[in-house]
């Protein structure tokens, strides 16, 4: 239905459920990508996808309506990145879910005065930084 579709894709929506659905849909869309292009792997690995989904679901469980939506992408090895971006004020949270368990999951947070990467051991850290991201 058109109305429902508009609700899901409204970029200004503050609804946590809507933002969660958009985020999950964007993660699932990654599975439909071609396996690779001339730059490298496009479609995420199963490990990266499972890791990203688990963290997003756990974060939404704890944040509910304050869960912010993000953009998703893959690197050339099938890792997944999730980006929460604000241009004004300038603020970025970037979750990196590696293609294999040999690399750590990490979270990068950036402002004009701060530029930090930390390994992510649980979804609590993601929730903490998404709550920080929301304080605009």
């Amino acid at each position: 239905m058109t109305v429902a579709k508009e609700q899901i894709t409204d970029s200004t929506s503050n609804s946590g459920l809507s933002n969660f659905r958009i985020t999950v849909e964007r993660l699932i869309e990654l599975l439909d990508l071609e396996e690779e292009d001339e730059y490298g792997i496009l479609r995420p690995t199963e490990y990266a996808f499972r890791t990203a989904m688990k963290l997003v679901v756990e974060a939404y469980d704890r944040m509910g309506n304050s869960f912010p939506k993000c953009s998703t992408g893959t690197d050339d090895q099938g890792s997944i990145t999730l980006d929460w971006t604000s241009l004004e004020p300038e603020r970025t949270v970037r979750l990196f879910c590696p293609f294999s368990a040999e690399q750590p999951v990490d979270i990068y947070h950036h402002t004009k005065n701060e530029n930090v990467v930390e390994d992510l051991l649980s979804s609590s850290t993601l929730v903490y930084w998404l709550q920080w991201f929301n304080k605009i």
Partner: protein
Amino acid sequence: MIEQSSESASEFEKLPDNTVVYRALRKGWIDRDRSIVKSDAYYLRKRINEQSISVNFSIEQSLSALKNCEGVASLNVGGIRELGLNVVRDSSSHGSIIGLPYREDNRPRANELALLLARQSQIVWESLSK
């Protein structure tokens, strides 16, 4: 003593700061909510020992650089140099942004530089098929 005497070396030696370079954008490198370039576009690929980020000197050259190019972004060479990086011309159609670390070696710096390059990028061409 090593001398660089070839014509090509002098021809391609130094790009003025006001030079505009173009980066071909792969699928997923554009934030569709904000129509901005994502930092994914500016990481070196360590698995292939990539030493620089490829850029071109026209939109058309960038369009031919990737088979399924999703967009093209422009950057100013002076702005790139302000980040402590450099851009060199390798040929008449290809340039290289040099000075970036691998994400695997220096995560904070690689993330920061990729983000700052993305913020400097202006989308100048975008594919209609999203």
